[in-house]
């Protein structure tokens, strides 16, 4: 068993690394069972098993291998996990190996080694940048070609299955947020922490220490990891310091709010019970130290994309952290000292390093001596100009480079190699700095963009600030932590800066591309080559944004982390301008691709929107209510009886039953959802006068009145009844849907327009359960239910209000009617709502009381010609709705002065009418359009539309509708056509008065 493991992991070094060799882990790649160790990433485990080919490129489907060891990975994207947990495009370099892990390569068919689409590679010159803009325009049209283009494009596949995992969100507050737990971040945390400031340190990996985890550097004469350990020990002792691991900051937003994703369970086969997969952090900090390090860049030369070519730092990391040997015969190609660091590191681990190819002509003695000692050939002033191999690197061609770097020597030499480690320099990770609003500046001495002016309270330090040496990192971190704590008023701390032992640096010499023929990949994920950039320039797409959009440079899952700098610099060379002039594209969040799950958190499924329930909800539920959403409220739409299933037919039966029961005897509806606003203060009447169109100063105590509110522009806003409970105390109701906006509108008026008015308002919607009891027997039923026993016309006239009691429960009773019947609205404190409802239902049993829902309520209001949602659509004026009688001419009110505008008094405005089908039976659909001649040519002139309707008025025994039509009630008696082309229905309708039933209002008196 054990020997089998070793056999498989042929590239595993016999010792070293931060892996736990006593904890082997089985996993599968493309169905093949493999073994790795605890501590591995998927990428390191694949390399340990000598798996070089891991994917196919986006456009040319070229074989690709693992290219980096981190977040910037452009190649090793795979489908992780299976079925409902599948995660396409997952970077193997970021995945901690777990038991049973399954990964599949992507973008290949039928398999990784024989990919049909590599035919694209042969036709390369045809598939140049933006080729698709120049063709596919002819017959059979783009729709035809698109089908194939879409299939060929894309990367991973998903099945859109429902995610079995859950997600969480969390807020955090701190004085100083430190992003990145490398040498810079740890140093900053130490000094900031010692000052007493509340420090939050977040880091994306499992282990703190950043690059120091795997570099062979020394601090204060000890291996760096010892320094990390003691730093962590000290930090963990500090109560004011919090450390969050596996937590990646992905965006720096306004007001110093930084967002991060915590990978709670991504390193596990499945999340633990009661745990989540990921958590979204929203961090509010006073100061933010950005210590996010830097990313190494590749070099651009012919066939620089083969499996076996890797960033130099990645090669070191695989060797040191994972004890994996990424190659047996190694050549290193660099334009900076990283090449030497890598060569020495690998050679000291007994890896055969053949040569270092340096494009520069000088090397300092320190490295030269070391290379000599280790027997590594040093090739200065030269470049790798081509590579060989297909599924894996077999060798490279090296040639000399002219001093201007624009040409190569005519002679090239072949060198056998299976690993080419490359370094084109380092780019500080300025992403978060840029999210915060900063514009990076080009710094020629390190050939990279570095942070410039600060725009919020972000403080880049260390490598992310362009300070690449270890001593610079710890110095900047230490100082930054101390300085910011002091600025925030915390005590100064005494500290010393640790010592490091680093050779002096020979400056990088920028080398953006190596001359020569062949495909030189700049963006290795999206297959953008140097010639694509040249073509973009040639065709005039010369701004960096045009370059990006035309060639797709930097648009992959890695967002150009390894490619943008090279691409922009090549464009600058083509344009003959300085890199700072050409600039760089915007760094947009997220820093890493983030799953959508944590952004929604727990607000999925039924929790998408909160559910608001009335105090009588449970009764409705127990008594067959089918609920309908009214904003967040759940309201009974209609009630099914025992044995009735929820079909359209039964719905119609129920609605008819409820209307007839109410109009015939008595019905009760839950109206708790109506907005209720308590209004108190000496100027309450004046206030109502200003916000309602009709007059309020003469409303007597104990009386209610219907009121109409307009927006400032004269359009109808809301309606409802308001009652006067005492001299300076009113009780307002609003529609359910406008409850919140009416309250805000009133607060706006009081706080901003008329602060001089003595009026206090507050929402009491939730205080009261409200039920409307309607029908000829409503008085009888109520008299039986209440303590006072007398609701005669004298005791409570129409539009009267009374404070009564029901079994000792205080109640407000209003004699108002929406249905047109004798009706009352009873309001009781919500906790008594269900009790009172039950009591009335019980007392009304002998009178055949029936509960009714919103459908029956809507039909009854249409029968009465009352306007509601369908008519109050934000475009109608009072006149449109026949409500001009509510417009007072004797006072000012909101909306008044705009009512007389040309467009408002246009006689052609559609106005409210009633509509009845000529044949007395055809259903007229809401949303039908009213036309004079349904056979007129298109575009057809329209007279208006049907705004609401009942397929059958149970009272009138025929369909009725309300509509808005040009000419309005002047057309009563005319016939027009209601047409719904969507349904293929056209019916002749007669225009009638909008009040269909009991025009005189006699039924209000019972």
């Amino acid at each position, binding site marked *: 068993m054990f020997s089998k493991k070793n056999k498989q992991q042929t590239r595993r070094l016999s010792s070293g690394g931060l892996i736990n060799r006593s904890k082997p882990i089985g996993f599968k790649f493309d169905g093949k069972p493999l073994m790795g160790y605890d501590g591995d990433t998927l990428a390191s485990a694949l390399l340990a098993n000598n798996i070089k080919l891991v994917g196919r490129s986006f456009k040319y489907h070229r074989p690709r291998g693992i290219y980096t060891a981190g977040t910037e990975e452009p190649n090793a994207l795979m489908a992780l996990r299976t079925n409902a947990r*599948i995660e*396409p495009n997952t970077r193997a370099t970021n995945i901690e190996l777990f038991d049973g892990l399954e990964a599949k390569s992507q973008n290949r068919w039928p398999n990784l080694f024989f990919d049909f689409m590599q035919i694209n590679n042969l036709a390369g*010159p*045809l598939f140049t940048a933006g080729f*698709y*803009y*120049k*063709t*596919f*325009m*002819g017959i059979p049209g*783009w729709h035809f070609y698109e089908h194939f283009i879409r*299939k060929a494009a*894309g*990367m*991973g*596949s998903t*099945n859109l*299955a*429902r*995610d079995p995992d859950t997600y969480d969100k969390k807020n955090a507050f701190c004085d100083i947020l430190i992003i990145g737990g490398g040498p810079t971040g740890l140093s900053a945390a130490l000094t900031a922490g010692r000052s007493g400031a509340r420090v939050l340190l977040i880091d994306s990996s499992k282990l703190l220490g950043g690059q120091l985890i795997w570099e062979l550097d020394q601090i204060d004469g000890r291996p760096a990891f010892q320094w990390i350990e003691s730093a962590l020990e000290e930090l963990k002792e500090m109560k004011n310091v919090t450390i969050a691991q596996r937590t990646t900051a992905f965006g720096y*937003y306004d007001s110093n709010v930084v967002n991060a994703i915590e990978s709670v369970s991504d390193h596990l086969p499945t999340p633990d019970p009661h745990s989540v997969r990921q958590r*979204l952090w*929203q961090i509010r900090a006073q100061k933010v130290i950005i210590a996010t390090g830097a990313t190494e860049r590749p070099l651009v030369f012919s066939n620089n994309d083969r499996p076996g070519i890797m960033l130099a730092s990645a090669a070191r990391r695989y060797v040191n952290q994972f004890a994996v040997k990424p190659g047996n015969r190694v050549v290193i190609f660099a334009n900076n000292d990283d090449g030497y660091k890598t060569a020495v590191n690998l050679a000291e681990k007994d890896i055969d390093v053949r040569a270092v190819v340096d494009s520069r002509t000088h090397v300092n003695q320190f490295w030269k001596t070391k290379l000599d000692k280790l027997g590594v050939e040093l090739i200065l002033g030269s470049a790798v100009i081509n590579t060989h191999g297909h599924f894996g690197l077999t060798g490279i061609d090296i040639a000399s480079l002219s001093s201007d770097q624009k040409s190569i020597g005519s002679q090239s030499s072949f060198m056998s190699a299976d690993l080419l480690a490359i370094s084109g320099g380092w780019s500080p990770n300025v992403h978060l700095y840029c999210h915060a609003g900063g514009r990076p500046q080009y710094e020629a001495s390190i050939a990279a963009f570095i942070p410039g002016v600060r725009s919020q309270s972000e403080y880049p330090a260390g490598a992310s600030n362009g300070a690449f040496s270890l001593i610079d990192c710890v110095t900047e971190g230490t100082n930054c932590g101390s300085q910011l704590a002091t600025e925030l008023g915390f005590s100064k701390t005494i500290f010393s800066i640790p010592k490091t032992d680093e050779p002096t640096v020979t400056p990088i010499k920028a080398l953006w591309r190596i001359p020569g023929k062949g495909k030189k990949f700049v963006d290795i994920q999206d297959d953008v080559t140097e*010639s694509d950039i040249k*073509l973009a320039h*040639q065709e*005039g*797409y010369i*701004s960096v*944004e045009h370059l990006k*959009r035309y060639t797709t440079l930097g648009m992959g*899952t890695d*967002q150009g982390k390894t490619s943008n700098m090279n691409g922009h610099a090549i464009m600058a060379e083509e344009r003959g301008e300085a890199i700072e002039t050409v600039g760089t594209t915007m760094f*947009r969040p997220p820093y890493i691709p983030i*799953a*959508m799950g944590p*952004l*929604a*958190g727990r*607000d*999925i*499924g*039924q929790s*998408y929107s909160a*559910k608001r329930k009335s105090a009588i909800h449970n009764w409705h539920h127990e008594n067959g209510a089918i609920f309908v959403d009214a904003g967040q409220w759940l309201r009974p739409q209609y009630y099914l009886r025992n044995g009735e299933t929820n079909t359209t037919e039964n719905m119609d039966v129920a609605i008819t039953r409820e209307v007839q029961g109410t109009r015939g005897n008595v019905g009760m509806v839950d109206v708790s959802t109506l907005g209720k606003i308590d209004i108190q203060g000496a100027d309450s009447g004046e206030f109502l006068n200003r916000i309602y169109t009709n007059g309020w100063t003469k409303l007597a105590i104990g009386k209610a009145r219907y009121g109409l509110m307009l927006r400032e522009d004269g*359009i109808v806003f809301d309606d409802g009844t308001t009652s006067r409970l005492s001299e300076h105390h009113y009780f307002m109701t609003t529609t359910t849907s406008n409850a919140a906006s009416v309250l805000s509108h009133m607060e706006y008026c009081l706080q901003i327009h008329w602060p001089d008015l003595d009026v206090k308002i507050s929402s009491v919607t939730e205080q009261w359960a409200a039920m409307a009891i309607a029908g000829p027997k409503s008085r009888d039923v109520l008299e039986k239910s209440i303590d006072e026993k007398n609701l005669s016309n004298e005791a409570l006239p129409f539009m009267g209000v009374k404070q009564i009691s029901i079994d000792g429960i205080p109640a407000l009773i209003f004699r108002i009617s929406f249905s047109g019947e004798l009706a009352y609205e009873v309001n009781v404190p919500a906790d008594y709502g269900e009790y009172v409802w039950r009591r009335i239902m019980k007392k009304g049993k002998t009178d055949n009381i029936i509960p009714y829902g919103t459908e029956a309520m809507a039909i009854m209001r249409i029968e009465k010609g009352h306007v509601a949602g*369908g008519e109050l659509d*934000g*475009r109608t004026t009072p006149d449109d709705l026949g409500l001009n009688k509510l417009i007072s001419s004797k006072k000012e009110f909101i909306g008044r002065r705009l009512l007389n*505008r*040309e*467009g408002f008094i246009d006689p052609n405005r559609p106005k409210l009418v009633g509509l009845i089908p000529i044949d007395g039976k055809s259903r007229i659909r*809401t*949303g*039908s359009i009213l036309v004079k001649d349904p056979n007129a040519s298109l*575009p*057809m002139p*329209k007279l208006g539309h049907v705004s609401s309707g009942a397929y059958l008025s149970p009272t009138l025994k025929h369909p009725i509708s309300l509509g808005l039509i040009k000419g309005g009630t002047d057309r009563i008696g005319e016939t027009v056509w209601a*047409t719904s082309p969507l349904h293929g229905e056209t019916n002749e309708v007669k225009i009638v008065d909008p009040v269909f039933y009991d025009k005189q209002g006699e039924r209000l008196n019972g």
Partner: protein
Amino acid sequence: MSKYSVLSLIKNAFNDNRNWERAWRDPEPKKNYDVIIIGAGGHGLASAFYLAKNHGIKNIAVLEKGYLGGGNTGRNTTIVRSNYMLDENALFYEKSLKLWEQLSHELNFNVMFSQRGVLNLANSDSQMDAITRRGNTMRLNGIDAELLDRRQVEKMIPYLDFSDTARFQIKGGLLQRRGGTARHDAVAWGFARGADQLGVDIIQNCEVTGFKTKGNNIEIVETSRGPIGCGKVGFAVAGSTGHLASKLGMKLPIESHVLQAFVSEPLKPIIDHVVTFGAGHFYISQSDKGGLVFGGDIDMYNSYAQKGNLPLIEDVVTAGLAMIPGLSRLRIVRHWGGIMDMSMDGSPIIGKSPIDNLYLNCGWCYGGFKATPGSGWVFAHTIANDAPHELNAGLNFDRFRVGRSVDENGGGPVPNRH
């Protein structure tokens, strides 16, 4: 200027692609132009193109402060549709859609107009009523529309949430099959190349800094590259309209707001239509490159920053997962913001201005991208004839004052309700 075709691609492939010409020239500004269009986004370039093509005006410049197509043209979610309810919008957007249908040919530039269908979901009975009215109006205006019930929607797009756990059930939807998506940058580039071929000077990196007026006319447009004389001036600067108008002392019924957009990692084809949610602000489609492109509501506050904030992102994604639960494990790779010039009724302003030789093309809210060819077409007509075309007559600047707002969803004079 060579024509683009598969033959030209093959020919150039043999020449190592060395012979491709510039897509547009990089001219120095002349002293004087008959018409200056400010803003080389899709609308400005289309206006110049149609001025030259349809109205025979030759001496035209398009001034651009940055690079062409760098504003909202290249920052939107690329949806094209004409599913409007009010005639003023519907007939105009339908003209635009008709132009889209032949645009690649007209420009000899593949704008990848993909008529994959736009489906608006309805998640309540009242929404069903509203889309019924809208769809019927569309049909009577000669625009294609189909009403789908829940079952038909499920058959067409099974991955939407049809389960009992959905908070708001899908009741049906309004489908416009002729609607779809296009490649946004290509529209700007195609119009730029087309206008350039007709002699229009597209002048990039040329910021307008002020105006010299005489009487009620603009005489000189001051720019970062010197003063330029003009016969007529057209604004086509979207979110920057208010800023530019203030240089003329003009104030507009417009606020600038940021609208965010999002793209996921590239995936093999999975979402074949444009779908919009009824119970929240969310719309999604899949680009030809494979990214899921989606968006939602504006960030609610006035903004000129081309970036948004997380609460809105959370809202958009939450609505997205309510509509398509299976998005949960997919990853967002980039999000950005565009500046919307939100008008006070949610409809555009395109027509004459209070200044005699200035024409306004602004207030596009979310409708700008799909309007691109139509906007250019009617704007060119308006500028050439000094009078609006009947298609944009109702979208005039004066409508707010006289009470003839074109308020598609009844939000009133509050930009963030549209």
